């Protein structure tokens, strides 16, 4: 064996990876060649130095930065959008949707009030508001509205110039008035039309005004995943793995407070991955026909091009 061969095999020799015969060849060469023996010693010293090299400690800010990144990961659903980094100014979903959601909420609030007022009267008979309830004046038909004189009417008459004939008065009954006090106070008398008497109007039960208009619009589709009791354990890992494999993320996990089992998981995906994700769910468990997401669920995701699935896990 010459010096070149011995040098070529030096690492394997020191790792103990040579056959016995080859190792003996190298050993005998190192005994005879001082230069190669010195090279072998220095190579071993370098490797020992590498093994004993103490790691430089991680800077203290690393943990804080990881925490921040994870927090952004959990809240930054907008990073699923077409390449939009979640750390761009205004790039977060909340900040980008704040103004449109508030505007939509305001419009829906006005509309709901309008519908509320326009609807049929409440079950109880209308009561005159305190502001317009005055003591009964002397009987004067042209200034009375079914026994009650409105402040507006008083002001109208009082503001007429002297000598002006008073306009022809009309007499209204309580039944002619609209149900809501606000409308009664602000509606011109000429526009109040005689209607059905209060007794004849059907009583209608109406729900409370929909306060959900004031909240951000929900989004996403529901998926029901049925699993066997044996397949229950680790199902969240498999759902999350399916989402991650398809480039999505897990937005939220809800667990049963009693047992700690996952009852639902919310995942975010890009739209092209939606079908593949549902196929994965069919492999993990069984998605019954009634558990498949409906086509009419809108919007599908927090931002265009994404879809959010709330996978509800049920043990069958």
């Amino acid at each position, binding site marked *: 064996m010459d010096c070149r061969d011995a040098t070529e095999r030096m690492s394997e020799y020191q790792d103990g990876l040579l056959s016995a015969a080859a190792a003996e060849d190298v050993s005998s060469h190192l005994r005879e060649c001082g230069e190669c023996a010195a090279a072998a010693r220095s190579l071993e010293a370098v490797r020992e130095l590498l093994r004993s090299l103490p790691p*430089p400690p991680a800077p203290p800010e690393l943990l804080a930065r990881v925490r921040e990144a994870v927090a952004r990961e959990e809240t930054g659903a907008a990073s699923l959008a077409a390449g939009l980094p979640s750390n761009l100014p205004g790039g977060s979903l909340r900040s980008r949707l704040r103004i449109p959601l508030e505007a939509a909420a305001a419009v829906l609030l006005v509309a709901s009030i309008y519908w509320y007022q326009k609807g049929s009267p409440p079950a109880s008979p209308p009561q005159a508001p305190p502001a317009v309830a005055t003591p009964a004046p002397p009987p004067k038909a042209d200034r009375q509205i079914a026994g009650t004189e409105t402040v507006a009417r008083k002001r109208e008459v009082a503001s007429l110039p002297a000598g002006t004939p008073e306009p022809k008065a009309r007499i209204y009954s309580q039944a002619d008035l609209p149900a809501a006090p606000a409308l009664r106070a602000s509606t011109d008398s000429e526009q109040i039309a005689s209607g059905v008497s209060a007794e004849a109007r059907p009583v209608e039960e109406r729900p409370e005004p929909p306060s959900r208009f004031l909240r951000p619009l929900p989004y996403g589709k529901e998926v029901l995943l049925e699993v066997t009791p044996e397949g229950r354990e680790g199902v969240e890992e498999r759902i999350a793995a399916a989402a991650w494999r398809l480039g999505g993320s897990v937005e939220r996990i809800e667990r049963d407070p009693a047992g700690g089992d996952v009852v639902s998981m919310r995942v975010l995906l890009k739209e092209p991955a939606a079908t593949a994700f549902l196929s994965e769910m069919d492999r993990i468990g069984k998605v019954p026909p009634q558990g498949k997401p409906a086509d009419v669920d809108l919007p599908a995701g927090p931002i265009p091009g994404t879809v959010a699935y709330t996978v509800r896990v049920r043990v069958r």
Partner: protein
Amino acid sequence: MSEEGGKAVETPAERGRPVDLLVEAFRQGKPGAFDAIVRAHQDRVFAFCARMLSDREEALDMAQDVFLSAYRNLGSFRGEAALSTWLLRIAANRCLNRIRQRNSASRREAPWPDAAAEGNGPEFQPAAGEWHSPDRVAENREMGAILSEALGRLDPDSRWLVLLSDVEGFSYEELATMAGMPVGTVKSRLHRARMALRRMLTPVV
């Protein structure tokens, strides 16, 4: 055992492997579990990144990316290797990609020769001989600093192999799998890298 993607999936405990308690705690949603994982492995991951990238800030960014990637993918961590090995694999791949991107326009560092060219790759040439200068050696009194600088002078692929093999203890077979090359190629490249380091460090070892 359960079914996923048509393949049987086992937990580490079912295979008789030790269960990483921190990973299990993380999977169970225990508060602070991921913090504990970061604390347990941050020194090793950061050290690897720092030695690979030779830049503290870049290493900090990279270590953060590694842990964020781990956070996203811990659900699919099968426990076939230790968590530290898994994290270092992520770090190794990302560091190498980062260096290749960084040096894509640079011709200073030779590309990774293919397996067919084994044995004919460019021999490492220490830069300018300044390492042999007594003044230079005297300036770098701390062996760690000297070694880190020597590692930084290796081409990225050789540095990657030396760090994973001689510092982190990966086997030739593991490196071959990670690098996608034959074990023999890994052995020869590692040997050349070690010999290059030996030439650089001879004055101080």
